[in-house]
């Protein structure tokens, strides 16, 4: 597996637009912490952030820092992306099952497209997009 720094989308990702439901996530991201909503009633995490628990429909939620580690559930290598990703080298979109039991969609960086596999162990990395730090993943070697 390659060790080269690889992120064809670096610097061109559109900045995320946070909502009132996600302030804690982006505050944590600034400190390199992957924050997840946790349902106190069911003892389970959820992602993306929502106004209620997807398990109970109630609002007994708190934010907890996640390990940032997980494995690739599925992936696609995008050769022809939409704007602003037109014309760049192929980039890798993954969904990652975090060890906390939630699935996130992001990019796999620092990995050649031919080396990505379902089940690949990955860890979160952070990349600047506008004023925010956006979570991407890299192989967890």
């Amino acid at each position: 597996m390659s060790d080269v720094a690889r992120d064809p989308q670096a610097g061109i990702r559109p900045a995320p637009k946070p909502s009132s439901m996600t302030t804690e996530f982006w505050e944590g991201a600034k400190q390199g912490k992957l924050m997840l909503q946790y349902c106190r009633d069911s003892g389970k995490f959820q992602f993306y952030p929502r106004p209620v628990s997807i398990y109970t429909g109630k609002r007994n939620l708190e934010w907890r820092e996640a390990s940032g580690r997980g494995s690739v559930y599925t992936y696609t290598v995008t050769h022809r992306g939409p704007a602003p990703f037109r014309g760049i080298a192929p980039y890798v979109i993954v969904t990652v099952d975090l060890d906390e039991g939630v699935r996130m969609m992001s990019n796999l960086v620092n990995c050649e497209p031919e080396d990505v596999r379902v089940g690949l162990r990955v860890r979160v990395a952070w990349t600047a997009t506008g004023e925010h730090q956006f979570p991407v993943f890299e192989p967890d070697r």
Partner: protein
Amino acid sequence: MRDREIAIVGYSETKIELKSGRSVFDLAGEAMAGVLEQTGLDRSDIDGLAMSASFSDAGNPFQGPMMAGYLGLELDWTQTTDMGGGSVTGNVARASAAIRAGLCETVLVLASDAESTENKGNVGLWRTEWQFPVGTMGPPGYFGLLSTRYREQFGLDDRALAKLAVTQRNHALLNPLACDKLRKPMTAEDYLGSPMISTPIRMLDCVMVCDGANAVLVTSTRRARELRLEKMVHPVGYGERLNFDEGNPTPDITLGGHSVAGPKALAQAGLTPKDIQMFHPYDDFLIAIVMQFEHIGFCARGQGCRFVMDTDLRYTGTLPLNTGGGQISAGQAGLAGGGHNLVEAVRQLFGEAGDRQVKNATNALVTGIGWIPYARNWAANTALVLEAA
């Protein structure tokens, strides 16, 4: 529904065009006029309107009333359904329910979109927050994720996908309303050699977004007889599932809501998949057809590609598939595209499909797919069984 108290008595579809320059209202007017001409009914016979939300007129929170105004309709009931490609089949069920409830008698189920001319869609929140930065803005990325996972679990036979592409293309060649840009012969090699968009999705796996409108007219069978309408088909089974397995944060995305909606529709109709004589599934990507065969129960999970290889899906075959070309080879009329496959099924059951007429078919299964949620299988699933009168 099995009581046959509800009838679809007419259908209409515009030519599917790329960048027509027309508005949703203009296209919709053509579709309504077409169904009035076909049935011989008066505009005043329509007292209900079930519309599909469009990309072209997105942002207008009064799409239905404004449409009714443009069409000169005075109504007792209206609603606009926003399940994307599931809206039209969903609206047949909603119209049936409204008629049974006595809210109205005759409903125009109308879908119109000119997405390739103008797209005012603006879906924010998690899309702009978590999806746009990643570069999955278009559906090909999502279907790439779905396909990779499917391939991992079951294997994916490119020959089966090629067969679907070619079968539907050959049907589009026989459909004068299909988009002209797509009415060109295609071979399996053309499919296999088409450029990779987002692995393993090729260019020819995808729909092309176009403009177009379609309509069906739904009324009670009693009313249809009063109006002396000769041709009709009956919706005899319907199933719908939004957000399959939503409480599971790490679902198996090779499973989906058609595994609930499909069997429900068939059970209502008193049929099994073996009884279905024509299949008109929603097709935004070829893999969606493979998965629907499995979810609905035409074959076991993971056997979709083998089922495709073993089944004659031509209009002359044992299970005719999307005989109008499907959206992939006729063009996707934006969010009105879910009506293309429905109209084709009705047209076939009326015996009016011309050069591509299926012989002796007395029923059809039509499905809808709409809205792609975050990192999951598609969200809206509809299945509608039609029977000839």
